[in-house]
């Protein structure tokens, strides 16, 4: 790739997530999207930077805050939006909604809404890759709040003990719902915690997509070449409420504003402008392209249909049956 195109792709990747989710927020007000909706706005650099460093045959496991990961992984925005509409054309037939995006094609293994619940799965996928002689890496995303869960501890130990190709991607946005890291962890340096499993652990500026991509590329190289699991802590921040029901009593407007000074999209945009790679014209083009993609996604979702009620009992068990 050319030195110019790549950074613009990163920028576009983040912008796509931003505009997509801004539209989701509107659609939630219009009650087109229901249930829980957790926005990733402010954290886009993490998903985009990490996915850039993965191969198609790698595996991704994410949380309920995973629209950004799904889009960055290359899932069709239309399928994602249709899922949030609850349409049968959605990536999970409208059964999962915002928290349960799935896509076998891009090896996107969900969309897990139990905090910490995806971590043991990642260990197992990595074990399967190893046992089948493949060199795929399994990247699992989780928030800093998940670090307090027993499933985190058990999964970190098991992955390190068995030297498995897992990339632990901790998105430290400082809050678990309303609980600040300091009220959740006795050890605030999460990388020290990870290191106690004999696992290499790095802190990364999660607002700088280039730093994220760089750190992830090095970590993935190590993991893929049988270097064992790796823990990455991405320091980031959630600009929006935890979900659509959160009055945000637990943090100050000032704190939020300060972090917005480091908006990952603005940061890259300014840098690229300074480097002369980006100008108004290119930016408007990016905005236009992304806007069209989002419009197309919404149009696809709007045009979608409802799964026939008779299909409610499909896929409780596999239709193939015992082989």
């Amino acid at each position: 790739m050319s030195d110019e195109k790549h950074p613009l792709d990163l920028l576009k990747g983040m912008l796509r997530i931003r505009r997509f989710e801004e539209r989701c927020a509107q659609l939630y007000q219009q009650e087109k999207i229901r249930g829980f909706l957790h926005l990733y706005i402010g954290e886009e650099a993490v998903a985009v930077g990490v996915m850039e460093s993965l191969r198609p045959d790698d595996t991704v496991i994410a949380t309920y805050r995973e629209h950004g990961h799904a889009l960055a992984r290359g899932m069709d925005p239309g399928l994602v939006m249709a899922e949030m509409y609850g349409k049968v054309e959605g990536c999970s037939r409208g059964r999962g909604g915002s928290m349960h995006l799935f896509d076998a094609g891009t090896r996107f293994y969900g969309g897990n809404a139990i905090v910490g619940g995806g971590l043991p799965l990642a260990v197992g996928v990595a074990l399967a890759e190893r046992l089948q002689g493949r060199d795929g890496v399994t990247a699992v995303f989780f928030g800093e709040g998940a670090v307090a869960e027993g499933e985190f501890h058990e999964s970190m130990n098991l992955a390190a003990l068995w030297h498995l190709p897992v990339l632990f991607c901790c998105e430290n946005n400082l809050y678990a719902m309303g609980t600040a890291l300091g009220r959740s962890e006795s050890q605030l340096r999460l990388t020290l915690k990870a290191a106690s499993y004999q696992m290499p652990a790095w802190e990364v500026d999660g607002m700088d997509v280039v730093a994220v991509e760089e750190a992830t590329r090095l970590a993935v190289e190590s993991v893929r070449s049988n270097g064992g699991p790796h823990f990455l802590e991405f320091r980031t921040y959630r600009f929006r409420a935890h979900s659509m029901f959160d009055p945000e009593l637990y943090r100050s407007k000032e704190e939020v504003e300060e972090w917005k000074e480091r908006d990952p999209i603005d940061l890259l945009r300014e840098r690229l402008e300074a480097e002369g790679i980006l100008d108004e014209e290119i930016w408007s083009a990016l905005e236009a392209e992304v806007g069209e993609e989002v419009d197309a996604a919404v149009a696809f979702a709007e045009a979608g249909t409802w799964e026939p009620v008779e299909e409610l009992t499909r896929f409780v068990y596999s239709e193939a049956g015992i082989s």
Partner: protein
Amino acid sequence: MTDVLTQNRTATYREAMREAIREAMQQDDRVFLMGEDVGRYGGCYAVSKGLLEEFGPDRVRDTPLSEAAFVGAGIGAALAGMRPIVEVMTVNFSLLALDQIVNNAALYLHMSGGQFNVPLVIRMATGAGRQVAAQHSHSLEGWYAHIPGIKVVTPATVEDARWMLATALADPDPVIIFEHANLYNTEGELPEYGEPVDIDTARVRRPGSDVSLITYGGSLPKALAAAEELATAGISAEVLDLRSLRPLDTKAIVATVANTHRVVIVDEGWKTAGMSAEIAASLAEQAVWELDAPIRRVCAAEVPIPYSRHMEEAALPQVTTIVAAAEEVAGR
């Protein structure tokens, strides 16, 4: 009596529950509230909003995401003289604490030969119906009711939300309170001189003579609405609110069937080996000759609860399905 006790007004289920917690903490220093986001966030369903400011962080404790540890800590604190109210945000996450509840809370008294009782109250939101999909839509009340050593209550009215907690806290043994998330916004009258209610008997919420609708928790409003509709069709339905699932008031279950001889059990949980099965089984044991029609169960479909609205509605008991079942057993 404190002012809390003497107000006569309509309140929401949420307000009633909050008032019950506040009153308990005002009256007994041993009571404290612990759970995820009960403090600064105000509770994920806003039940504990304002309590941190009133009682401080020692008695309104935000916990890390560590369901096993803070539920187990509640058990330990209860063993050592406190009266903890542990909030597990939803029943879905209580799966992570089941070892502590089933292997410690439920067993300690019997296993220690009567030495160590566990005066603990665990509150959790339960149920589906808000399009939050499979992992956030469990109804596992029947699972908990299976376990000797704990008690399981399901306040379905604003009055029970207001008054069951005090009785649960006065209980020397572990009591689990299931609060259906769809009930928090329901409104009801609070009697001028309210007082603690029992937590081991069922109540007839609407008398009737043709068919019994036996239910609990979040399904009570649906059963009452179905009874209303049945009335217009000339079918008189009696609605029994179980209130407590363990102990189960089988006397009341047998009594209503002895009165109507036809029964529809409404349970948002899955049918197989759930709460509805126990109700039907106790009738098959104790009142089989009273039945003028086979028992009907209206439960959640045996599927993970889907996100999309129409599919979720199809998966859960609805007024229409309750009415249809009642008409069927009533032979109309």
